[in-house]
């Protein structure tokens, strides 16, 4: 459930960014990097700190 919430939150932010800066929506690579940062790298870094 926590994982699904993380993906939904990442999606909401990505959609908001995409609507504001549509250029972002053209790049699959940027989308991929964003998703990896949002659901893997950042949670792992935060988990290490706490």
């Amino acid at each position, binding site marked *: 459930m926590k*994982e699904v919430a993380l*993906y939904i939150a*990442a*999606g909401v932010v*990505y*959609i908001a960014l*995409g*609507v504001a800066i*549509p250029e972002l*929506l*053209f790049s*699959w690579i940027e*989308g*991929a990097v964003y*998703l*990896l940062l949002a*659901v*893997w790298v950042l*949670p*792992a870094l935060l988990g290490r700190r706490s």
Partner: protein
Amino acid sequence: MSWVAHDAEPYVIQKHLGRRIAFVPLLIGSYAPDLATKWFVYGIGAFGVELKADNPAQFHRGYPGAGFTHSLTFGVVVAAVIFLIWRSRIWAVSFLIGQWAHALTDALDTLGAMLLFPFTTDLFSLGAWAYAGQTGRYVDAGAYFSGLGFVWDGFWLAWAVLSWRVLTRAYFRETIMVADPFWRRAAEYLPETALVAIYRISFFYGTCRWIAWLIWAHVVRSFAFDFSWGGPKWVDAVQSNEVNASGCSCPSCCSASPKLALSLAVAAAGRISARRARGGAASTSRSPRDGPNAR
């Protein structure tokens, strides 16, 4: 062209084929026809130099141009190369299915695709929504997300959502990793969370883009919805016959392609019937020693 269907289709196909398919080549196949050509259709500028096809529609789907990437034959040829290099039937078949899904989906717009190239340069088109790649990325986005194109994408996204089990970790462990050694090798370097995220990227990207473009086209901008066949009518759509007409119309091309296609079709039909006849003969010539239960 389709903006999101190529992201969602692989997950639906994955759901139906399970371990008989490998996801990575399936996804690569689904993107392959546009992978090296789309940037030149819309144009790209750097250091004051603008690179763009003179006739984007012709370049994207036609001949002469890169339209051969949208043919069913292209999928077969690349799949054969994959098989010859890696000796992996599952990788070859998966690529083929993904590429065919892309080509057939693109045949739904007004421009269509040269599905049977090189046997014919005719573009097969159902004409459901307007092809407007030549108008530039933003007008194209506005047009696509105002007509039946985004409905088609929505259909695939809904189907992918209904197939949600393919997105779970359990499915990833039990099916995706088992079917394709790529993931087992990647698991030596990356944790499972990262691998699952990589596997889900296209679904995430497609879903978010679909929602974001809809909001952009109808809330931020005010493109008008038009669900008529071949619409929206307010955009200057390219029709398949416009690109067909600009193809090579010399007598040798006009006469050679249909003849070549017919010859190959007859040869293929002959092979299939010969194989069937051999199979039938084998099944009827069983030894009595096979016993009454032998089939």
